[in-house]
C-alpha cells in the first residue's frame, strides 16, 4: 500500500513541548487504566479487613483511614487466630476449592492430551472418514467454540441424571474438557505448524515409529505451546459458572458457585464476602502474573501471521 503524501508537510522533528505533552498524555492514560484495573481488586482485598463502620463510612486506605481487622478472614476460618480452630466454613471452603482445583486441572489435562494428539494428526496427516476430510474435521472441532453452554446444559442435566454423573467431579471434568478442547486444538495446531516436518522425517529415517517421533522429537519442542494452552484452559475452567451452577449441588460444587450462592443472600457481610472473593481470585491472579508470557502466547496463537 502506498502512503499518500500530503500537501502540507508535517514537521518531522517535533518541538520538545509537544514531545513532553505527548509523554504526559501517554503515561496519564496508562496510569488511569491501571487504576481502573487495580482499584476493584484493591477494594476487595482491603474490604476483607474492614469492620462494619469502615464499610459504611467508605474508608479506603488501611492504617490511615481505618485499622485493619481480620474479621472477614476469621469468618472464613482463615485468619491467623482462627486457623487452628475447627471451622465448618473453612472446611466447606476448602472442599469447594479442591473441587475447583481438581476439575480445572483434570479438564485441562485431558483436553491437552486429546487436543494435542488431534492437532498433531490434523497438521501432519491426511484423513478421510467417509466424506470427511481434514478441513471438515478441523471445522467440526473449532465450531464447538460457538456452542453456547445453555444448549448443552439441559440435555446434560437429564443425561447425567440417567448416567448417575450429576453432581460429580468427573461429570464436570468431561464438560469442561469439551468446552476448552477447541481452544486447545487451535493453539496446538498453530504450534505444530511452526515445527518443521524435516525433524520428524529424520527421526523416522533413524528408525523411530510415528508415535516415537511424536513423543521424543515433537513433544519437547511443542512444550511451551502446551503450557500456554494448559494455562488458558485452566483460566476458563476455574472461572466457569454456568455448568457448575446447573449440574452440581452438594458434592461437586466449585468456588464460583459458592461465591455466587453467598452473594444471593440478603444482608451479606461485606467483609466475609470480600474475603471469599479474594480467596477465589488469588490463585489465578498469581498464575496470571507469574506465567503471563504463556497466557499471551496462548491468546495470540493464530491471531498474527
Amino acid at each position: 500500500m502506498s502512503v499518500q503524501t500530503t500537501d502540507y508537510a508535517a514537521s518531522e522533528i517535533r518541538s520538545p513541548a509537544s514531545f513532553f505533552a505527548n509523554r504526559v498524555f501517554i503515561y496519564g492514560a496508562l496510569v488511569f487504566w491501571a487504576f481502573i484495573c487495580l482499584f476493584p481488586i484493591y477494594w476487595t482485598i482491603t474490604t476483607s479487613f474492614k469492620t462494619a463502620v469502615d464499610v459504611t463510612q467508605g474508608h479506603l486506605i488501611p492504617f490511615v483511614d481505618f485499622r485493619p481487622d481480620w474479621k472477614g478472614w476469621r469468618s472464613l476460618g482463615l485468619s491467623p487466630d482462627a486457623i487452628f480452630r475447627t471451622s465448618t466454613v473453612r472446611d466447606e471452603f476448602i472442599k469447594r476449592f479442591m473441587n475447583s482445583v481438581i476439575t480445572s486441572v483434570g479438564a485441562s489435562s485431558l483436553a491437552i492430551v486429546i487436543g494435542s494428539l488431534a492437532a498433531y494428526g490434523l497438521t501432519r496427516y491426511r484423513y478421510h472418514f467417509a466424506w470427511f476430510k481434514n478441513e471438515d474435521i478441523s471445522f467440526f472441532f473449532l465450531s464447538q467454540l460457538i456452542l453456547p453452554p445453555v444448549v448443552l446444559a439441559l440435555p446434560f442435566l437429564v443425561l447425567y441424571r440417567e448416567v448417575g454423573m450429576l453432581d460429580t467431579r468427573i461429570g464436570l471434568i468431561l464438560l469442561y474438557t469439551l468446552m476448552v478442547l477447541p481452544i486447545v486444538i487451535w493453539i496446538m495446531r498453530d504450534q505444530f505448524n511452526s515445527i518443521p516436518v524435516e525433524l520428524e522425517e529424520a527421526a523416522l529415517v533413524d528408525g523411530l515409529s510415528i508415535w516415537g517421533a511424536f513423543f521424543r522429537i515433537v513433544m519437547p519442542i511443542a512444550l511451551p505451546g502446551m503450557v500456554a494452552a494448559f494455562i488458558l484452559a485452566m483460566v476458563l475452567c476455574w472461572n466457569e459458572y454456568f455448568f457448575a451452577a446447573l449440574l452440581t449441588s452438594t458434592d461437586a460444587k466449585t468456588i464460583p458457585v459458592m461465591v455466587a450462592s453467598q452473594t444471593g443472600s440478603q444482608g451479606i457481610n461485606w467483609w466475609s464476602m470480600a474475603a471469599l472473593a479474594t480467596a477465589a481470585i488469588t490463585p489465578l491472579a498469581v498464575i496470571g502474573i507469574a506465567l503471563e508470557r504463556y497466557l499471551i502466547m496462548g491468546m495470540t496463537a493464530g491471531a498474527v501471521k
Partner: protein
Amino acid sequence: MTGKPVIKAFSERTRRVADQTLPTSAWPANAAPSDLISPGRKRLGRALMAAATLGLLAVIAVQILYKTEVDTIGFETWRPVVYAYVLWGIALGVGQVLTRGEDGQRALFLLPALLFTIAMVIFPTLFGFYIALTDWNLSSFSGRKFNGLDNFWQMLADPYYRNALFNMVLYVLAVLVEYVIAFGLALLLNAQIRARKFFRVVFLLPLMLSPVAVSWMIGKSLMEYRFGPAATLARQLGWENPAFFSNPITARISIMVLDAWTFIPFMMIMLLAGLQAMSREVLEAARVDGANAWQTFWQVTFPLMLPVSVTAIILRIIFKLKLADIIITVTSGGPGGATDSVSSFIYREYRDRSNVGYGTMLAMAYLIIIIVFVTWLLKFANRFVRNVN
C-alpha cells in the same frame, strides 16, 4: 497492501492448513504398505472391532429393555453404557492398528478427540432437540409428554424471550466500544514507554478473575447504592441518585461495563500482538512521506491491523453470545428482565420454573440463530477484509 487478508477464524484457516499438510506419500515410513500385515492379524482386528460393536449394542439393547420394563435384567443407571462406549472406543483404536498398520497408528492421533466430541456433542444435541418438543416440567408429576411444536409457538409469543434476544443485539454492539478501548490500550502499550511489562500484566489481570467474583467485587459492592465508592463518586459528580441497576438503561450499561472490564484485555492482547508484528519500515516510510501521527494511524496502522481486528472482534462476539454469569449473579435479569441475556433467561426458566422442555426449545432456537449469525458474520468479515485491502 501486501495482502494476506486471512481471517483466521474457522473455515479460511482450516483450508490453508490443509494445503500445507504433506501428502502422506512424502513419508518414508509410508513405504510399509498395508499388504505386509498378515491376513491373520487383519482378521483378528476385524473380529475385535465387530465383537466390541456387538457388545456395545448388546449393552444398550439390554438397558433399553430393562428401562422399558420388558426385561428384568439390567442396570440401575445408564452408566454401564458409558463404560461400554469407552471400551468400544479402545477396541476400535486397537482394531485400527491391527488391520491397517501405520495408517491405523495415524488414525489413533485423531480418534480420542473425535470419539469424545461426538459423544459429548452430537448425542446431547439430538437429545436436546427431542426434549425441545416435549412438555416436561421437573416439578410436576406427569413426566415427559411429547407435544410437538407447542413450545415453538409459545416461544414466538414470549415477549421476554424477544426482549432477551434484543438485549443480545445490544450486548453484541457493545463489542465495538470495547474494541475501540482495547485498540487504544494496545497502542499505548506499543508506544515507547517504560515499565511496559508491568502495565501489560496489570491490564491483563481482569481477564484472570472469575466473572462471578467480579460481579460481587464491582457489581455488588463498588456500585452498591449506599456505600459503594463508585456510587459515592457518581454523587460527587452530580448524579443525585446513582442506582446503577434500578433503571433498565443504566442497568444494561452497567452490565456492559462489567463485562467489558473483564474482557477488554482479551482483545487488547490480540491487537497488541498485531501491532508488534507490523513492520517498522512501513511506519518509517509514512513518516518520511510527511504523514503526521493521525494520518499514519488511519492510513497505515488501521488498514494493516484490519485482519487482526476482525479476528479479535469475531472471537469476542462469540464469547459475548455466551454471556450469562455476570447477569445471573448481579441482576438476575432485573429490573423486569431488562438486562436478561438469552442464556441467563433460559437459566432462570430452568432454575426457577423447572421448565425443561420449554427452556430447551429456547436454547435450541438460540443455537440455530447463533449458527446462522456467526456463519453470516464470517462470510461478511471475509468479504469486508478483502474489499478494503
